[in-house]
């Protein structure tokens, strides 16, 4: 393993102090590609471009992680749900918070002393337009600037040295339900952002803005005419075949696609060799499938796009005509793996729909699609026969399909629930164990769709749901290790609540994650054996990171319960089918933790 050299740190420091030295597109790309491979730093919200969430640091390892101690803590002063993770560049850590989207620069040489603070003034009327709490998933960095996508859809570039606004552009209109929650990603000279608003009928897009001045370079919609999608009907493929003209329009009735969702609130990954970016699209609007006949393309899909032009190379829709709110936005993890005796450039994706997908990321070929929670029952699996008409489509079980049961009918016992077998909380991959570490939800639901009317800027949902753990079980989450070449669970640790924290794998053989009760946990990457836990001040829905400063390795995580987890689980779940007396039988998160945003930083004691 390469040790972090002083020269690399110096490069980061130089970059910070002279942002204009590397002013060209090529240099920026080169810098970030180089910087993200240095595990001492965390220069992007996904840690690395491949989204593996793997650190080469190994000073904290299976032998000593049990001795981990809190080094210092920091309160963000914000109470709502804290998703994402800080960035670390040289001597400075950049911490973000939910609405009002405060950003702090902290001095790592002085236990997190505040170097500067940015607090935007945003119209609080954006708060109720945000589905599921006022979360923000973090910052991006490039060229001496930090990029923040605020709740009100202002994309702001801050001077990393001073916190002063360098430029600001408005990417959307909160009056129509468009909001910002996701973390941007910088690729070469462009900063990529998506939009939230699937519960408000917002048509999703990904937009590339110039790192230098915020000028829009391209915008690619999830739905609509080919010119909006940035696709080539002949060259853009799904499962190896051209998608053809009007692929999206043909899959909708009338103008429903204009308010059809497919929002882009997840993570990005980037393959510099293929020059492709990858991301997923969210649920089609409304949640009432009867109001939108057709496959509703390209909601619920994985896009591979040219990083320069935005043109789609390939696309794959995982859940055609969604009937469950199984957004396809979860992260795409890029890893080269041996499948069938040859090395394949794979993309691994743990979808909300409960299937773990392995694709060839160069071609979009589907290699594996298997359930990563045995409870999943809405599908019997994906048709893997290349000659079949239904190739690549999930086989839907009618009795668990609300759209087939009809409006005003309560479809019972569907697994997983709308929050998915996994939500946005990213998984990790260790190239050493060749395993994926996946934080999961283990929750089922009843789902009843009904008619709704669209008003711009108002919720556009159209379904009622009740959630509860799978029959006969009380654990609402699992933390699992997954073999993506075979589509098999290797080990699984039950957790009382959904695991809503991003995982981290390390060269020390330790995997970290947080729990909704507030525990930071360290487990053995090979066996899942718990090696350490510490209860932080609030429930964890943030992502664990590690970094090195002045020769010491640190582990850090934001706690601050909230998000969807804080809504669904606060008062506890009930099983409507368990009969009298069982109601209220499951744990309520309110009994374990309360609000409050805190960063907790861990390290080993000095010997």
């Amino acid at each position: 393993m390469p040790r972090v050299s002083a020269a690399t740190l110096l490069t980061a420091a130089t970059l910070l102090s002279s942002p204009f030295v590397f002013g060209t597109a090529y240099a920026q790309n080169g810098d970030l590609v180089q910087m993200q491979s240095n595990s001492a730093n965390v220069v992007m919200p996904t840690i690395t471009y491949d989204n593996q969430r793997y650190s080469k640091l190994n000073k904290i390892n299976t032998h000593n992680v049990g001795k981990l101690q809190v080094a210092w803590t920091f309160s963000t002063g914000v109470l709502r749900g804290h998703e994402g993770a800080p960035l670390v560049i040289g001597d400075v850590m950049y911490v973000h918070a939910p609405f009002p989207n405060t950003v702090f620069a902290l001095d790592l040489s002085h236990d997190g002393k505040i170097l500067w603070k940015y607090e935007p003034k945003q119209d609080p009327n954006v708060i109720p337009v945000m589905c599921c709490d006022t979360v923000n998933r973090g910052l991006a960095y490039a060229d001496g600037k930090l990029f923040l996508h605020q709740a009100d859809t202002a994309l702001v570039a801050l001077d990393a040295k001073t916190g002063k606004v360098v430029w600001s552009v408005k990417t959307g209109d909160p009056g129509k339900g468009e909001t910002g929650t996701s973390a941007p990603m910088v690729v070469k000279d462009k900063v990529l952002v998506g939009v939230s608003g699937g519960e408000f009928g917002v048509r999703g897009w990904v937009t590339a803005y110039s790192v230098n001045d915020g000028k829009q370079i391209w915008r690619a919609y999830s739905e609509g005419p080919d010119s909006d999608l940035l696709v080539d009907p002949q060259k853009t493929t799904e499962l190896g075949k051209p998608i053809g003209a009007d692929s999206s329009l043909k899959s909708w009735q009338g103008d429903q696609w204009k308010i059809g969702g497919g929002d882009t609130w997840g993570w990005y990954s980037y393959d510099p060799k293929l020059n492709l970016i990858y991301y997923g699209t969210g649920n089609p609007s409304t949640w009432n499938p009867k109001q939108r006949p057709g496959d509703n393309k390209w909601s619920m899909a994985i896009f591979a796009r040219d990083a320069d032009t935005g043109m789609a190379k390939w696309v794959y829709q995982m859940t055609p005509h969604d009937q469950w709110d199984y957004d396809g936005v979860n992260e795409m993890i890029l890893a080269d793996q041996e499948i069938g005796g040859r090395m394949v450039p794979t993309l691994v994706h743990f979808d909300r729909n409960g299937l773990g997908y392995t694709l060839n990321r160069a071609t979009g070929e589907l290699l594996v699609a298997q359930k990563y929670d045995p409870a999943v029952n809405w599908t019997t699996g994906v048709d893997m026969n290349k000659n079949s008409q239904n190739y690549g489509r999930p086989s839907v079980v009618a009795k668990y399909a609300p759209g087939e049961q009809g409006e005003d009918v309560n479809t019972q016992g569907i697994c997983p629930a709308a929050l998915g077998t996994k939500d946005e909380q990213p998984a990790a991959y260790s190239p050493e164990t060749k395993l994926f570490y996946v934080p999961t939800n283990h929750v089922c639901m009843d789902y009843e769709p009904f008619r709704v009317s669209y008003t711009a800027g108002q919720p556009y949902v159209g379904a009622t749901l009740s959630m509860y753990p799978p029959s006969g079980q009380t654990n609402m989450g699992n933390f699992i290790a997954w073999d993506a070449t075979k589509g098999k669970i290797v080990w699984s640790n039950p957790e009382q609540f959904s695991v809503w924290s991003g995982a981290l794998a390390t060269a020390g053989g330790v995997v970290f994650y947080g729990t909704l009760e507030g525990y930071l946990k360290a487990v053995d990457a090979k066996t899942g054996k718990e090696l350490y836990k510490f209860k932080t001040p609030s429930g964890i829905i943030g992502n664990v990171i590690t970094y090195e400063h002045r020769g010491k390795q640190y582990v850090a995580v934001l706690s601050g319960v909230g998000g969807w987890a804080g809504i669904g689980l606060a008062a506890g779940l009930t099983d409507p089918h368990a009969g009298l007396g069982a109601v209220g039988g499951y744990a309520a998160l309110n009994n374990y933790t309360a609000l409050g945003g805190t960063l907790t930083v861990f390290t080993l004691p000095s010997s």
Partner: protein
Amino acid sequence: MKKIVFAAAAAVMIIASAGASAATDGSGDPTAVKSDDGKWSDKDGTPTFKIEPDGTVDWYTYVGFNRYSSECLRCHGPDGMGSTYAPALMESMKRLSYTDFYAVVAGGKQNVSASQELVMPANGENKNVMCYIDAIYIYLRARADGAIGRGRPEKRAAKPGAYTKAEDECMG
């Protein structure tokens, strides 16, 4: 499409009503005394629930559960029990009168301070809420009074003819 104008004048800020301290229902005795084609009201004419001895709920309580879960759950949590940041409405309803409730739903409410930003949107133009506001009120009143438990009401009265007509007219 017919333009629906709801009582915007009702958009007054509601301060937690202190008057109903002893009562468990912000609108007083919830006993159902009169039915207008399946929609019940109490002695003061305020919409209310009607639960039969075998647990069958009136149609509006059932619709209220559905629409609450679709329109309000995303902040106020399942079954009116609150989330990490928005209040449990089954508790709030012990203080709020029907008029209070209507005003907050239609006009919104803000409590923005240095420590918290609580913002309830104005739903006055939102047909998915306003066409069902009585049903949502009735459902939450039943939750506040302990007349129904958590989850979907299992048994419900048949859909009244007047309901379909009113729904079609309102939703357009």
